[in-house]
């Protein structure tokens, strides 16, 4: 699976594209960042995995490994999104937190599907309704390497160049007056 940095980079590229649309409203900016968190959320299991490996408990390690299988499914994304939504109780309408998290989580699954899957498995989107025979991936890159990060980094650099040319960092709502750059 790509690392968190790659997932965040891809999420940034998506929100950058949205921020360039004519109908884009600046009030959406807050939810962009929740989308970024949602894009990383299914990999929350890495924290459990590191803890399990440090403890060296085999049962714990096995549960953490299976957690990956489940968190990388529609059900897993749904549950993790609900979990994170609970951290924002003062939000007037929690669906505005839940939806960007869920869409980001689904984006995460699509990103993971480009890879040659770890342990031969793909992403089992419909777990537990389907078994491992329905797991699928596009087998484009090996996980764990720098390839996806480098590609994402190049595209991200391209977005920064476009913003510099336009003198408008739309994602951050920063517009440079012409005189400050000249």
């Amino acid at each position, binding site marked *: *699976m*790509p*690392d*968190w*940095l*790659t*997932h*965040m980079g891809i999420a940034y590229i998506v929100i950058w594209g949205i921020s360039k649309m004519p109908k884009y409203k600046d009030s959406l900016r*807050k939810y962009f*960042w929740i989308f*970024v*968190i949602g894009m*990383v959320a299914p*990999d929350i299991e*890495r924290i459990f995995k*590191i803890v399990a490996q440090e403890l060296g408990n085999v*049962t714990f390690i*096995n*549960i*953490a490994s*299976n*957690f990956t*299988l*489940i*968190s990388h499914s529609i059900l*897993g994304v749904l*549950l*993790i999104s*609900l*979990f994170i*939504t*609970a*951290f*924002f*109780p*003062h*939000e007037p309408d*929690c669906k505005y937190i839940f939806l960007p998290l869920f869409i980001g989580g689904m984006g995460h699954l699509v990103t993971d599907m480009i890879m*040659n899957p*770890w*342990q*031969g*498995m793909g992403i089992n989107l419909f777990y*537990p309704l389907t*078994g*491992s*025979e329905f797991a699928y991936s596009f087998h484009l890159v*090996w*996980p*764990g*390497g*720098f390839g996806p*990060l480098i590609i994402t980094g190049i595209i991200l650099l391209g977005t920064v160049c476009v913003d510099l040319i336009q003198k408008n960092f739309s994602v951050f709502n920063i517009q440079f007056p012409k005189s400050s750059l000249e």
Partner: protein
Amino acid sequence: MKKILRILFLLSPLIIVGLAYYEMNVWHPPLNPNIPQPVSIETLLEHNETYKAPMELIITGDVFNKSDVDEYLFLDGINDGYFKVNCTGLNISSIEPGMTLELRGYSFYDDPEKQYFVAIEFHIAISYSIYLSIPGAILILLILFWGFKFQIKDFSFSRKSAEDEKNA
């Protein structure tokens, strides 16, 4: 958000943990033996009759040692034992003990005279993703605590600061 709803949301990952625990204790025979089967070494050894050749398998394991003639690899097995892999025809000179490998091949562990796994393809898994996730995690914390004024104290967005921002 209602308190009861919030508690239910906070407990929702327990469903994932429950399913993960269930998955740990069940074994399903392959439904479609014609496609390569991902299987753990432990399961393969326990059900060697089911996973015997010509079923193509995909296994992952850590290299414990390799033979001097570079034909056999020994992966960490179960109960302090090892898992023997026949790599005839493959160039495994780049493989060193301690590496994690993903192997494709066929199991002959059901045959008392062979007792090995024949590899037809291998991939050395070098994963930087955990290390690359650390800067990602730092960025997320920055977004939460600096960008969103997230406060541990109230376990939520600060309503006051959100209103201030709106008024500004």
